[in-house]
């Protein structure tokens, strides 16, 4: 008995253009309610929309980055439905002639690279935003109405929550690399709906597709898929089927709940929007955009492996964001050992950033400062552990490593004469440990070395202490 999960995703991404898709109101998150509105985005009678060249360019850029074919021409269609945050009574979208088709994104699964197909990417406008008050009213802000979106629709090629998460991460990284969107789920600039069903691989029996909404993080996407997997399978096992319905993810209770059933299929009455004139996309323009594409995450990763001789894992982590990759490369310009830089960036730097929910751009110190710090360590002037302390200080104050080391007197003690006295004193105070070590208890050595490090506030050169302590004990 086996079951296979089948998942397809629909992802809406807000584009980072300066203006809205059909008017020159600014496209900006936030702002006082209803201050970025004009007759076009409010849908006032007689207003004439004009397609934003920048939005179209971003759409094409995304299509190319996802290996799609770009349509030779563009028309827009009206998708009719009623909702207060939809100013015109229809959303301008694309129906039968999407801007991009037949692309893919690769993810790494155990068996190697797996292609997740992208069926289409189309352009559309965002809607306004409704707030439902406790008093029973709905307040509407149309600042977001007309913000350019692309909707990315995948093929049902995803077979687990883990694959969905990897796909979304890759998709987001690529969109950020090409700078068409900031992809902030918490601000709604990336939104993801899930279509899921399960097939019994023995009998071929399939459950009906459930649509999942209200997924506010990649984690929510993964949890909702896992929840639905279990729900679909348990129904199949009972010989039952799922209802064709839309369900909402409830983060608090960790489960999905029915939103509406799809029994009466939506009828959007798509019709060509003849107000928006059609546009022929010249091949030269597409070539120009293709040439302008930056190095994409997987290309950068390959280069890091070759150029810096990094393990695949390191290269993958460091190229997750363009900014992180840039920080790494910049540090490397001043440092000698790419693997050491990688260890520090992936280790202490990233860990601290994650703990504080900061981005690499928020760092108070420069790549060169990290390289300088590593140089102090490599030259034996400070120990690795002291280096970590200095880095913590750099995080907080942004001070140069040299200044911190001087100010705090952290220069490593590598002078045998200076250490000798300290070691003798420690040995005198811990005679039992000396005896223990001589009797073959290796652990006692560690204890003694620890005491010496403590006495020097961690500043003693550890290798030297190790060597000297052994010698001194031998002599006793």
């Amino acid at each position, binding site marked *: 008995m086996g079951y296979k999960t089948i998942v397809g995703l629909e992802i809406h991404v807000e584009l980072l253009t300066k203006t809205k898709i059909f008017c020159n109101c600014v496209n900006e998150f936030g702002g006082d309610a209803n201050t970025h509105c004009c007759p076009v985005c409010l849908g006032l009678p007689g207003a004439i929309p004009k397609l*934003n060249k920048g939005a179209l360019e971003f759409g094409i850029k995304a299509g190319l980055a996802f290996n799609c074919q770009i349509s030779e021409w563009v028309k827009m269609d009206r998708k*009719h439905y009623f909702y207060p945050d939809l100013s015109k009574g229809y959303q301008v979208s694309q129906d039968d002639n999407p801007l991009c088709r037949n692309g893919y994104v690769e993810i790494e699964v155990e068996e190697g690279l797996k292609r997740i197909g992208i069926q289409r990417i189309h352009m559309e406008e965002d809607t306004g935003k409704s707030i439902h008050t406790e008093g029973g009213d709905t307040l509407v802000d149309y600042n977001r109405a007309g913000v350019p979106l692309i909707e990315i629709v995948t093929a049902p090629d995803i077979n687990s929550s883990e694959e969905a998460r990897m796909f979304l991460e890759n998709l987001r990284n690529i969109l950020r690399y090409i700078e068409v969107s900031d992809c902030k789920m918490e601000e709604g600039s990336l939104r993801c709906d899930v279509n899921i069903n399960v097939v019994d691989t023995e009998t071929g029996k399939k459950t009906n597709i459930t649509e999942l909404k209200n997924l506010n993080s990649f984690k929510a996407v993964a949890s909702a898929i896992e929840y639905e997997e279990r729900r679909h399978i348990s129904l199949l096992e009972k010989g039952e089927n799922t209802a064709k319905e839309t369900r909402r993810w409830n983060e608090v209770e960790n489960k999905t709940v029915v*939103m509406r059933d799809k029994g009466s299929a939506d009828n959007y009455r798509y019709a060509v929007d003849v107000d928006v004139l059609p546009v022929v996309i010249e091949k030269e323009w597409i070539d120009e955009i293709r040439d302008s594409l930056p190095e994409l995450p997987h290309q950068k990763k390959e280069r890091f492996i070759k150029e810096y001789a990094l393990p695949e894992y390191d290269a993958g982590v460091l190229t997750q964001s363009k900014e992180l990759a840039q920080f790494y490369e910049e540090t490397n310009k001043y440092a000698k050992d790419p693997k050491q830089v990688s260890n520090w960036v992936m280790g202490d730097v990233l860990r601290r950033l994650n703990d504080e929910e900061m981005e690499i751009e928020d760092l108070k110190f420069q790549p060169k400062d990290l390289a300088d710090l590593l140089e102090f360590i490599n030259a034996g002037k400070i120990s690795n552990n002291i280096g970590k302390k200095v880095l913590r200080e750099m995080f907080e104050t942004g001070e140069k490593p040299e200044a911190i080391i001087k100010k705090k007197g952290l220069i490593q003690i590598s002078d045998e004469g200076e250490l000798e006295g300290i070691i003798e004193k420690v040995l005198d105070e811990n005679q039992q440990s000396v005896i223990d070590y001589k009797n073959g208890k290796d652990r006692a050595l560690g204890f003694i070395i620890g005491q010496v490090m403590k006495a020097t506030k961690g500043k003693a050169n550890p290798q030297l202490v190790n060597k000297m302590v052994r010698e001194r004990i031998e002599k006793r």
Partner: protein
Amino acid sequence: MISKEEILQLAGMCKLKLSDEEIEIFGAMFSNVLEQVKGLDMVNTEGIKPLYFLNSANKSLREDVAGDSLDREEVLKNAPEEEYGYFKLKKVMD
């Protein structure tokens, strides 16, 4: 002839409530229009590509440059009610 169900479905999508009498009236009107449009079916369109626009001049793109929006008072002029600069409506839930 358009059926009563179809009229009701259309009305539902338009959020309209129709009386029995109105259903009759609209039914007759819709049937009439559809009958006339059916005349187009007589034209042989085989092998002819759909034409969406008569004007296909390719100068219809707008540069991505910000301009002025309306003042908020202007925006809210037609609002049934307003609160904190928002359009205020009766509660709508999906």
